[in-house]
């Protein structure tokens, strides 16, 4: 026999919820149908429907004027009406529910397992904290990046004229917005973990990560460190009641900031500097003899941490070579720095389901940042899903870097993206290298990235 389940609810929760439930039960009895009704009224949820019952039900009747957690019925046929309809025509509703095409029971089970997995991945701590940080940082990346791009439009080194508009734009974009990027990322990760007491240590840790050149990966580390530290202090420090007020404004910020800061300076800072120095030395020792290998390496390094030590080592190495009249690595480095945001933009178009709405909107700006050689445009994407995004953009950039070297492209300007592309020789092959890297990046992303969890449908 077909089983039907129903939920009734109304805003006041004393009358319609229960009359609707009663009407449905009565109609079901007349028709000799097995029916269970969950009521959500002023006295709470009664006769709650279990997952087992949802799984066994043929269809669901929702007669409600308020939210009834509809998402738990995903994959089941649902008849959804206003609560009054169940009082007016309970028999008709039951007939309608009986006539619904039953879903394949395994479909529903799959759906349940899937949404459970999604829920846990979306709700569990670290991912949520990371996303809080990334979404706070995203507007800084976009606004700052676009302002830098506008400055480049006046000429790739127009900003060097002090007091000019391009100079101001560069100061706003690079000097302020981009400087805030990593601190805000770290600060909001920590804020998400420990609430307000986490903000100060997180911001400071992020600022230090930025100053010691640890980039956004250092910033993520600082944010988690500061957040969990502040949270731990919040739960551990016990004070007499009359001193309790000192805890959130004095003790936690002071201790958490001091410890996070000291760790950033001595434990993270030194190794970062060491990595950067030794990578730069190593690149110098490689020389430019094996062009393809050098291109691959420089490309992958540019994409690895976008502004962190590895990226800086590659960039400074290439800029350094300009002085000794070697222009190939500079071209490779710039091309490889353009493909990560470009590839992400292309991926948001190719596989929109694998990106959040925020990321899809951000994708368009990423494209502009990409052609302007503002690699930072890819950071929000990388920070929110590092283990899938970073490998993808590294492969794309490595391909582009190598191709640029193979094509013998040269560039004498240390930055500027599309605004200096006309300085590159040979320009068409260089563009081709960038396009191939962009496509490779996007394909890697579509293969590696998982579909984003579906937003839960809210009721009325």
């Amino acid at each position, binding site marked *: 026999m077909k089983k039907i389940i129903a939920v009734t609810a109304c*805003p*006041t929760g*004393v*009358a*319609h919820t*229960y*009359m609707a*439930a*009663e*009407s449905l039960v*009565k109609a079901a009895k007349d028709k000799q149908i097995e029916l269970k009704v969950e009521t959500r*009224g*002023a*006295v709470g949820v009664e006769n709650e429907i279990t997952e087992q019952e949802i799984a066994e039900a043929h269809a669901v009747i929702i007669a409600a*004027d308020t939210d009834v957690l509809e998402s738990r019925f995903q994959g089941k046929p649902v008849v959804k009406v*206003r609560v*009054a309809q169940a*009082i*007016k025509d309970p028999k008709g509703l039951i007939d309608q529910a009986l006539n619904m095409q039953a879903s394949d029971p395994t479909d529903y089970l799959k759906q349940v397992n899937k949404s459970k997995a999604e829920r846990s991945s979306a709700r569990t701590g670290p991912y949520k904290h990371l996303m809080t940080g990334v979404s706070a940082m995203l507007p800084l990346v976009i606004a700052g990046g676009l302002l830098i791009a506008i400055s480049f439009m006046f000429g790739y080194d127009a900003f060097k004229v002090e007091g000019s508009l391009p100079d101001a734009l560069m100061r706003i974009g690079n000097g302020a917005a981009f400087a805030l990027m990593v601190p805000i990322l770290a600060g909001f990760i920590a804020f998400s973990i420990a609430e307000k007491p986490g903000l100060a240590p997180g911001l400071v840790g992020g600022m230090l990560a930025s100053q010691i050149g640890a980039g956004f990966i250092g910033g993520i580390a600082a944010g988690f460190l500061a957040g969990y530290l502040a949270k731990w202090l919040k739960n551990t420090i016990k004070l007499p009641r009359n001193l309790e007020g000192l805890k959130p404004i004095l003790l936690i910020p002071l201790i958490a900031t001091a410890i996070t800061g000291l760790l950033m300076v001595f434990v993270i800072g030194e190794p970062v500097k060491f990595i950067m120095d030794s990578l730069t030395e190593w690149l110098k020792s490689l020389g430019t003899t094996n062009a393809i290998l050098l291109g691959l390496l420089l490309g992958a390094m540019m994409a690895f941490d976008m502004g962190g030590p590895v990226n800086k080592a590659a960039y400074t190495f290439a800029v350094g070579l300009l002085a000794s009249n070697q222009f190939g690595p500079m071209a490779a480095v710039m091309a490889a720095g353009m493909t990560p945001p470009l590839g992400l933009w292309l991926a948001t178009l190719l596989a929109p389901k694998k990106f959040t709405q925020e990321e899809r909107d951000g994708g368009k700006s990423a494209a502009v940042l990409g052609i302007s050689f503002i690699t930072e445009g890819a950071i929000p994407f990388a920070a929110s899903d590092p283990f899938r995004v970073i490998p993808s953009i590294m492969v794309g950039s490595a391909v582009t870097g190598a191709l640029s070297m193979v094509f013998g492209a040269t560039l004498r300007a240390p930055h500027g993206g599309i605004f200096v592309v006309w300085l590159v020789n040979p320009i068409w092959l260089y563009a081709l290298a960038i396009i191939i890297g962009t496509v490779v990046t996007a394909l890697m992303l579509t293969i590696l990235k998982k579909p984003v969890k579906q937003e839960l449908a809210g009721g009325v």
Partner: protein
Amino acid sequence: MNVSELLNKQSILIPLEISDKTECMQAMVDALALSGCVTDKSAYLEAVMNREKTGSTGIGFGVAIPHGKSAGVSKPGLAFAKLAKQTDWDSLDGEPVSVVFMIAVPEAAAGNEHLQILIAISRKLIDEDFRNKLFAVQDSEELIGLLQTI
């Protein structure tokens, strides 16, 4: 079931002479104020009217149950009216109304037992036998007697 805490003689109007729905509402709100459930009449009436705007509380079969949740209510209460003549209520089944229950619920959740009684009465209204007895009620003693049987 002990309904005497929810409704008393002041809130039972048999018969009630009114010319339309609005007048009926006002008379019943006054009755609830007299019985001590409603402290701020205009606030409660506004809540009832707002509820009515989202959909008529005429549930059909000649019965209407206007209700409102408001800070103007001090404790859960019930008013009953048997209308002298059938009155239009934009009911779900289009039929005019002859019996009205008005339910008052405080904003802050009060003792659950009162709510449980209101809920039990609401459920019972779906039962045809109960409704027929309700239509036949002649005075407040009979009504209270009938509600006690729930």
